[in-house]
C-alpha cells in the first residue's frame, strides 16, 4: 500500500507541471480561465492525496507520545 501511495504522490507532483495548459487562455463558463480552474482542482487533488496518506500511511507509532508520562 505504501508503494502505491508513494507512486500516487509522485504522479500528483508531476501533475502540477501543466505545460499543456501554459498558453491556454480559454474561459470556462465565460469567467474562469482554464489554467486557474486546473490549479484550483489541483488543490482539491492535493487534499485528497493528504487524506490518503492520513488514512493509509499514518505514523501510528507517534501516538505513543499522546499518553501522559507515567
Amino acid at each position, binding site marked *: 500500500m505504501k508503494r502505491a501511495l508513494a507512486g500516487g*504522490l509522485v504522479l*500528483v*507532483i508531476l501533475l*502540477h*507541471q*501543466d*505545460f499543456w*495548459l*501554459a*498558453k*491556454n*487562455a480559454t*474561459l470556462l463558463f*465565460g*469567467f474562469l*480561465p*482554464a*489554467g*486557474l480552474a*486546473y*490549479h*484550483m482542482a*489541483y*488543490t*482539491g487533488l*492535493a*487534499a485528497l*492525496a*493528504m*487524506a490518503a*496518506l*492520513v488514512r493509509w500511511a*499514518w*505514523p501510528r507509532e*507517534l*501516538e*505513543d*507520545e*499522546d499518553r501522559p508520562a507515567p
Partner: protein
Amino acid sequence: MIPAIIVFAYLAGIFYIGIFAFRRGKASGEDFFLAGRGLGPTVFLLSLFGTNMTAFSILGSSGMAYHRGIGVFGLMASSSALVIPLTIYLIGTRLWAIGKRFGHMTQVQFLRDRWDCGHIGTFLFAISAAMLVPYIVIAVMGGGVTMERISGGAVPYAAGGGVVALVVMGYVFFGGMRGTAWVNAFQTALFLSFGAAAIVLIAGDLGGFDGEMAKLAGDPKRAPLLSRERISEREFLSFMFIPLSSIMFPHVSIMCLTAKKVGHFRKTVVLYPLCILALWAPAVYLGVIAAARNPGLAPGQTDDVLLWLLSNHTGVVVSGVLGAGIMACVMSSDSQIMALSTMFTQDVFAYYKGKERFGDRVQVWTGRAFVVAIAAGAYAIAIALRGKASIFDIAIRFAFSGFAALAPVMLAALFWRRSTKWGALAASAWTLAAALGSWWLFSISAPGKPFPFLPEVFGRAPGNVTVWGFQPVVPMVLGSALLVWLVSLLTRPPSPATLARYFPPAVNVPTSFQG
C-alpha cells in the same frame, strides 16, 4: 475615517484576546512558549495556517497577478497546497513527538541533541534568526501603509505602524504562545472568509466578471494574463521547491509543537490545501480583474490593487471590515516575534545555563523582555527605512530559498541514522554562502541586460537571479542535500547512545508470542 475606526476596533479586539489568554495561562516556560503543548485541533489548524500566511498572500499575490496573470496561483498557491501539508505530515509530526519526548521547544534544541553538537546549533540559530527579522520589519511597514490608506491619510504611517507594533507586542507579551495562537486562529477565520466576501461583493457591483474577462481576452497585449504565458517553465518548476521552506521557518516548526495530540495533525494536513484555495484563488483572480479595470500600473504600484477594488466597489463599512481582514494578514508577525523570543530564551539563554542559574520564571520574563526589544527594534527600523520596503522584500525572497535549502538537513536528522553534525554544518554553510552569493549577483545585475559574467549560466529576472533559467532555490536545495549526504558519509556518526535515543531498535517479539 469609518474604515479606520473599524480597524481600530478590530485591533482592540485582538489585544483583548491576548489579555484573555494571559488570564488562562500558567507561569511555566512550557506554557508561555508552547501554550502548554495543549492546543486543540481547530485552533491548531487555523493558527498553523495563519502563521504561514503573510501580507504577500493577500496583497502581494494580487499585485503579482496584476502583472503576470492567473499563473501566479499555480506558481505559489497550488504548489504550496501540496508541499506544505506534506512537510507537516513528514516533519511536523516527528518534531512534535520528539519535542514531547525530550522536552524540546525549538528546532535547534533538537538538532543539538540529535547530533551531539553545541556551536553548530548556535550557528543554525544565528542563520534562522537573521532570516526571520525582515518579516517582522515588513509587517510593521505593511501595518503603517495599510492604516494610512484605509484612513485616507488621517492615520499617518508612523502612527499606524506604531499601533500595529504595540498591539502585536501587547498580546504576545501577555498571552505568549496561547495568545498568539488564539489571535492567529481568529485572524485566519477572518481572512479566509475575506476572499469569498470580496469576490461576491465586487462581482455584485460589477454585474459579474464575464465582461472584464472578455475585455482581457479580446486584447492581445493583456490576453496572456488569462494563462501562465508570462511565467517560464523553469521558473514554474523552481517554485515547487520554495514551499519546502515553510516547515523550516522557526515560527512554523515551533507551532507544530503546540498540538495536544499527534492526531490533531490529521485534520490540518487534509484541510490545509483547501485553506490555501480559499485565500489565494480570490486574491489572484481579483488581481487580474484589477488589471482589466485599471490597466497601466507599474510594478510597485500594484500592492494595493485589492484595496483599490474594495474601496471602489463596496461601501465604507464593508470596506472597513474587509480592511480588518487585510490587517489580519498583514499582522502575521506575531508568531515570528514569539518564535524569536522562544529561540533566544531556549537556544541561547537556557543553553548557556541561564535557566539553571535563574529558574523558569526568569526565563519567561527574559522571553517577554525580548518580545518588547524585537517589537521596538522592528518599529525603529520601519520608521528609519520608510519607502525602502523593497530591501526587506528582497531579503524575504532570499530567506525563502535559504529556509528551503535547510529542509534536507531536517530530513536527514529525522530519517537518516548515518547523518552527522558536519554534514549539517556543510549544508548550512552552503545555504548561507549561496543566499548571500545570489543576493550579490542580484545587486550587480539588472533585468533585461546581459549578465555581467557567465551569461550562459546566470540570468536576471525582474525579481531574482536565475541559474540555467532556474531560480536559485533549485541549486541551493540540491546542493544542500548533496552536501549533507556526502559530508555525513565522510565523518563520524553520533554516539551509539544518541542514535539509540532517536532510532530505538525495533522490539523483537518471539514468534510464540505473536497473535
